[in-house]
Structure formats: structure tokens, C-alpha cells
């Protein structure tokens, strides 16, 4: 009873923070602007989850698999993507309503994170560098805008986030030494409103002091692979940025390389930066800091605070004050061996001996990271930050020992890894409980007010519901292959559904009443 009261109190406080999910669906990449992937729905709980049963499954062509995007559910229709594809599916039956296919002119087709929706219109990015707007009723194209240059080996995979009259998108690609940026488009006309470059493009730009030259900075990378989160009260979007370039061989980019591998707060109306926090200063291991910046309001040191949590690919967990960017907690959520503690700002200090070496340096985590793009979850009911994590080792080599490397100039090789769920106490950064999987691979997560945490168990091929407080598995369903996206939940015709993608199949489960 105490827990129920606590949950209700927390939910009441969170209702003020973000717009409620429209129509009880899942209207944006993270369900709401906070990035918590926490649902207040309670028709499925730790008490009845064993009765959760299959409603339908929907398969996309195997050639387009796996489903790595988060489906949106709006007004009883599911919108699911793969690179160059969008499908609209009836959430009641799992039957296809329409299919859009982009006639591609190139770009890496490794994944697409999903669509954004505002009113009658849908937004999706394509590998060949376009932001495309479709009608949600029939998938007909309204307009397309070029957002990046294929000739410079950019591509796009990000899910657009719609904030007021802004469609916010980022860019992908770290083969050539090109700058990352995030930009905003008008939802109606598609016109670009602003673009914010992650790395300095002019001699007087902020952060230039962290690069040896303007040339190095202008080509310094920092891709914006992941959707932003948003605080309407502060009117700030939280952008996460990728690795610097050249990626591994780093002698020609001495310095912290701002604002790569960082969490950055921008005004969504003009793209102006308010603050930054660098999760991986002078990264040399391809550790994009593009893991979801999760927003939550909670007590810290006895005070109610507006917080931001990130479990970063480099194995570090951070809790920041999201109005100022000041770090409150910095910790390791898995053991790492590449840093020499944290600086006064709470940022990790890289150990120079663990930069890639010509004869090899054994580093944990590996290139895949202690976590990666699969979305984490924060439950205000348990106060736990959940992340799908890896303890992984590999050897990092410099392949280009010259003074002016370009591109990658090295990489890691080989490796060993094990995978687990980590439940982190946001107040201390310590792991409250850990659940190790026998299978390998990361999974997106979903927590609910029913004291449940949904996750895949990697290559074992199960979709699992765990007790969110203790980490005990309560229910599972074999979904043939690894869960490949972030699960979602929604209410339809009074029933709560849970949906997850695994390989080429979208699985929809329902609590029948």
C-alpha cells in the first residue's frame, strides 16, 4: 500500500513535467519527451503478468530486418520502420494498412530508429540523407528535405522528435572526418530553421580551445545519432554527441575535442547552447556519448531537483542537474580500466596508456561499449535507472602511426563479453542489483508502474518481464531471436498491450480481461 501511494505521488509529480501520452498510445520515440520509457499504465502488473498473451505478430521482409526502431502507436495505428521503409499496421489486428519505400541513392543501411508524428503528418529520415514527411492516413509523401551530404559519407538513421513547431533531427556517419550537427525543420514547410554544429566551424566558436587547430575542429566529427529529449519548463533540448574524428588514431586532435562525446543543452527555438557536459573527453575508442539523456524530477541531497541521467557507452554513469549541467553523480556502472578517476567537473580522465597503441592495449569496454544505442529506462516508482550493459574486453590498435591520420587509423580487435541488466541507484550511482544473461547482446528497456521491467535476454531469444524492484524474472516469451529494439506499451480499447521487435518480427502482447 505504501508503494502504491508512493507511485501515485510520483506519477502526480511527473504529470506536470511532460505532456501525457496522446490517446494512451506511444506518440514519440521514447513515449514522452523525458526519455524515461516509463509507463504509468497498471493493467499489467507483477501480480498478473503471467497471464500476458500474444495478440498478433507482424513480419517485415527479412532483407529489411532487424527492426531497430521504436514503433509509434497513434490512434490505434502502429508505425514501424526499417532503413528506407515505413509500415502502418492496425494495432487491433497486426494487418498492414500502408507501406512507404524510399528509392535510395545510397548511405549505410544499418538501422532506423523510427518516426516522429505531429497531427496528420509523419516524419522519417532516410539513409540517403533526407528528412521525409508523409501523410499518416496513406503514407503519401508530402515533401522531402536534404539534411546531409552523401558524398561526405553522412547518412541518417535518427528518429525525428517534434517539439512545438520544430522537427529536430541529427545525422550519422563516422567514416570520413566531417562535422556532426543537429538541426530543426518547420513541420509544415520542411524548411530548415537552424543548424547547430557539434564542433567549432569558425575561429571564434566556443570549444575551439580544445582543438589544436581550426582544421582539426572543423573535421572533428561528433555525430548526433540519437533522438533528443526535452524539458518544456526549461525549454531545453538535450542533444547527445558522438565520437571525435579521426576516431582511433588521435595524434592530430590533441585536447578535449569539444563538443564531441558530450551531453549538450540547446534552446529548441534557435539552437543556441546553454551548457555542456563531456561524458568522454578526448575519446579514442568510438564511445559515442549518444545514450539517451533521461530526464527525471527527484529528490537529491534532500532537495527536489530537475535531473538528467545517462549510462554512457564508456561504462560511466552520470547524474546532472539539467538546468545547469553540473554533475551530481559520476560512477562506473560496470568495471572499466581506461580512466584515472573523474575531474572536478565529474568528467572521466582518460588514462593515456589505454589509448589505442601500435602494439595493442587491452581495454574494457570494447568498441561496442558498456552499453550502446538500445534505450535505457528510469522508473520513478523504484528510483532505479535500468540499463542493458556489457562487460567486454578487446585490444585496441593504432594502424596509422603517422602524424596526420584520417578516418579511423586503427580499431579494436577480438574480444570477450558478457551481458547483464544493471539497476542503478540514481542517488549514489551504485548498482543496486544486476541480472546477468546467459545470452549475448543488448536490449532496449521499458519500465511500468505495474512494478515491471521489460527486456530481451540477448541471443537467448526471449522477451522477459522482471520484477522492477528485485530483478526477478516473472514472465517470458520466446521471440525466436534477440529483442532488437526498445519495447513499448499502450492502451487500446481498454486493454494494455506490450509490443517489441525481434529480428524481422513485431510481437504484440495483451492482457486479456
Amino acid at each position: 500500500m505504501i508503494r502504491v501511494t508512493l507511485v501515485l505521488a510520483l506519477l502526480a509529480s511527473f504529470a506536470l513535467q511532460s505532456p501525457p501520452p496522446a490517446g494512451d498510445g506511444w506518440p514519440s520515440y521514447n513515449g514522452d519527451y523525458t526519455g524515461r520509457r516509463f509507463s504509468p499504465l497498471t493493467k499489467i502488473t507483477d501480480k498478473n503478468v503471467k497471464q500476458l498473451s500474444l495478440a498478433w505478430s507482424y513480419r517485415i521482409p527479412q532483407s529489411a530486418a532487424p527492426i531497430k526502431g521504436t514503433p509509434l502507436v497513434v490512434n490505434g495505428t502502429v508505425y514501424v520502420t526499417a532503413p528506407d521503409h515505413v509500415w502502418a499496421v492496425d494495432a487491433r489486428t497486426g494487418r498492414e494498412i500502408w507501406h512507404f519505400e524510399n528509392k535510395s541513392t545510397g548511405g549505410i543501411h544499418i538501422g532506423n530508429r523510427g518516426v516522429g508524428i505531429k497531427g496528420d503528418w509523419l516524419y522519417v529520415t532516410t539513409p540517403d540523407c533526407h528528412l521525409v514527411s508523409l501523410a499518416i492516413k496513406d503514407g503519401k509523401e508530402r515533401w522531402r528535405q536534404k539534411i546531409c551530404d552523401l558524398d561526405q559519407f553522412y547518412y541518417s538513421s535518427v528518429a525525428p522528435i517534434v517539439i512545438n513547431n520544430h522537427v529536430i533531427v541529427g545525422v550519422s556517419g563516422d567514416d570520413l572526418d566531417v562535422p556532426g550537427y543537429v538541426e530543426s525543420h518547420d513541420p509544415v514547410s520542411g524548411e530548415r530553421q537552424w543548424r547547430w554544429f557539434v564542433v567549432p566551424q569558425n575561429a571564434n566558436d566556443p570549444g575551439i580551445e580544445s582543438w589544436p587547430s581550426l582544421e582539426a575542429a572543423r573535421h572533428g566529427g561528433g555525430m548526433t545519432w540519437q533522438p533528443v529529449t526535452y524539458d518544456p519548463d526549461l525549454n531545453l533540448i538535450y542533444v547527445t554527441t558522438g565520437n571525435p574524428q579521426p576516431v582511433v588514431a588521435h595524434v592530430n586532435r590533441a585536447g578535449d575535442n569539444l563538443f564531441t562525446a558530450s551531453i549538450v543543452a540547446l534552446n529548441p527555438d534557435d539552437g543556441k547552447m546553454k551548457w555542456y557536459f563531456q561524458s568522454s573527453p578526448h575519446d579514442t575508442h568510438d564511445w559515442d556519448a549518444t545514450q539517451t539523456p533521461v530526464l527525471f524530477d527527484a529528490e537529491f541531497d534532500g532537495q527536489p531537483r530537475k535531473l538528467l541521467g545517462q549510462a554512457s557507452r564508456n561504462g560511466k554513469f552520470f547524474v546532472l542537474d539539467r538546468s545547469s549541467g553540473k554533475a551530481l553523480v559520476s560512477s562506473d556502472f560496470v568495471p572499466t580500466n581506461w580512466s584515472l578517476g573523474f575531474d572536478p567537473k565529474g568528467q572521466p580522465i582518460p588514462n593515456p596508456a589505454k589509448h589505442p597503441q601500435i602494439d595493442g592495449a587491452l581495454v574494457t569496454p570494447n568498441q561496442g561499449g558498456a552499453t550502446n544505442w538500445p534505450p535505457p529506462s528510469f522508473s520513478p516508482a523504484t528510483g532505479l535507472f535500468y540499463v542493458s550493459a556489457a562487460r567486454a574486453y578487446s585490444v585496441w590498435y593504432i594502424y596509422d602511426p603517422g602524424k596526420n591520420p584520417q578516418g579511423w587509423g586503427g580499431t579494436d580487435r577480438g574480444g570477450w563479453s558478457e551481458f547483464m541488466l544493471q539497476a542503478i541507484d540514481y542517488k549514489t550511482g551504485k548498482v543496486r542489483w544486476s541480472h546477468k544473461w546467459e545470452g549475448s547482446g543488448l536490449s532496449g528497456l521499458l519500465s511500468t508502474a505495474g512494478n515491471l521491467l521489460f527486456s530481451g535476454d540477448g541471443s537467448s531469444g526471449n522477451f522477459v518481464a522482471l520484477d522492477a524492484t528485485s530483478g526477478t524474472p516473472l514472465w517470458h516469451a520466446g521471440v525466436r531471436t534477440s529483442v532488437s529494439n526498445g519495447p513499448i506499451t499502450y492502451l487500446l480499447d481498454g486493454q494494455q498491450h506490450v509490443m517489441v521487435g525481434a529480428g524481422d518480427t513485431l510481437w504484440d502482447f495483451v492482457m486479456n480481461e
Partner: protein
Amino acid sequence: MPADATTRWSLTVAATLLAVSTAAAVNAVQTPQTPTRRPPARPAPARTVPADAEAVTKRVCGTTCHPIEHATSIRRTRSQWEATVENMVGRGAKGTSTELATIVEYLSANFGLTASPVRGAAGPDDKPMVDPKASEMGKPLFASDCQACHGPDARGTSQGANLVRSPIVLKDRYGSVLGPYLRGSHPPGPGALKMSDLTETQVLILAHFLRDRVNDTLRGAPGFKPGDVLTGDARAGEAYFNGDGGCALCHSATGDLAAIGRRMDPVTIQQRFLFPSNAGSRRRATPAPVVTVAVTTEAGETLNGELVHMDDFTVALRDSSGAYRSVKRTAGVRVTKNDPYAAHVELLSKITDKAIHDVVAYLETLK
């Protein structure tokens, strides 16, 4: 691109070559050959690729983490494919040692450096393909008239721009942007060459040469491989092998590791001893050791065998008779897993980089 377009392009080049055969750069090549748009057709694979190779590769590499296209759009050498597959195992890819060896065979045979391009790779679908001969023909021209300012690798100097990062080079298609720029806007060079006199062929071979330098910076380029890892102290390595490392508890320099320095290159030695469970991607003379499991059921029966599958809910094994058994994991079921590589895993969290290099130096001396 359509076949007719390729033919048209080649004819144009051939005609241009005939017209400008006195060009210095072409003369520098002893046997002038027509630069072709595509590299030569790949030779037939010398090794046998198992019949189920494509299906195995699609299943293991194309269902869980990325579309199969992500692998098959890349071009790599056999050793690079071996390294890639091992990396993926390190990141969690699951396959038997036979399956992993099959995947390496399949990818090496079909997606080597000279395989034709496909959709899904980095960059535009119509990005230029380097003809190695044309690139080679461009080298002396670049050396005589461009290198002084742009550097030997075209990555720029204080006198000239980095051409690998140049939007003109990246936009170029076989001289389409480069030619007009060089002839019209490029400042005079330090050499005798007048930019406005550049022939179509000179522009073309420069375009191939420069695109080759861009490709040098990409993952999978010929130079994308480890350098000298033999930096350790062999004596210290021997001491670690017999002492703190605990290697001698299972291995012997005169037994299983005899002549390892002749059988494996130093990088492979380094990778094998740190990550032996990844060795499945190479064909082996003897079967790889397997993880075994002992399961005691609620009824008190004990089952032993090779682990086939285990998760939170089920454990499955194949016993010595070849029979498959699966058991639901309940509170009364006990499972003991035996990983033959457990000692190597334990080493990862305690070994220093110095000890790694010392051990490699030592093992390399076992000839």
C-alpha cells in the same frame, strides 16, 4: 550502374587516351592500359565454400544486430574478414566454430576487395570505383606537380589543402568536378605543368589517384591492419607464462604450443591467448573445446554433455550418446557450467599490457 553506361565510359576514355598518348604521366607507365571504371573481375575462390554458407551467414549475421546488407556491402581481405568475425564474436555474435569458419569462407569468397559494389555501403551508390591501374598512372603526375603542396598522401601541408577532405574530390566523379576546377580555378602550381593544359586523361588518372587516397582512410583499406606488436621482453614473458600468468598449468612450450611462433603471426598469437574462444572463425585441425554442463534434475538425475542452450528458464545439452536433452530450470534444478576458457577470461581483468606484450614476445620465440 547500367552496363551500357560502363561501355560508353570506357570508349570515351579509350578515345581520350589515344588522343593524348604523349602525356607525360602516361608515358611514365611502361605499358599504358585503358583505365577501367571497375576493378578486374574477381578470381574464382580457391577454397571450397560450403553449400549452406549463404544461409548460415544470413542467419548468424543478419537477424539480430544489423541487416545482412551491412556486412555484404563491405569489401575486405580474408584476414580482415577473419578479424571482423572475431570482433563480432567478441561483441556477442553466436555461432558454432564450424559456422564461424563457414561465414569467413563465404564473406572472403564473395565480398573481397575486388567484388563489385552493392547498395547499402557508406557514401552514395554512384561513388567512383578506383581502377588500381589508373590510380598507379596518376601517381607520378601527382608526385611531380601536386605533392609539394598537398603532401605525399594528399593530406595537405601548410602550403596546400588536404585533398582527402576536399569537397571537390569527394563530389568528383572521374574528373567531372576536378577537371573544371583544376583548369579554371586552381592557382598555378610550382612545377612546369600548366593547369589549363591538363588533358582529360591526366584529370582522370588524378581523379583515380585521389579517390584511392580517400579510400586509404576507410576501414578495410589495405593498410588497415596492426603494426609491430613484438615490443615485449621474451624473458619476462616466459617468467609470466610459468609464474603469475598460470599459463603453464594447462599449456607447455614443448607440447601444445611447440613451434607456435612458426604457426602463427604475432598478432594472431596475441589475439589467441587473450580471446581463445574467438578462434572458431578459422579452420582448425582439431575441434574447438566446447562448453559443457552438468544438470541435476529435481528427480536427482544428473545429465552431462555439451551445452546447446541455456537461459534463465531452460538448459539444453547433447550427451555423449548424441542425444539432445532439455530441462526446465526450476528451484530444484542445479546447473554447473564448465567453460574450458575460464582461466583466460579471468586473466582479462588482471593482466597488464606489459605482460601481454612480454608473453607474445616469448611465444613468438617458440619456433
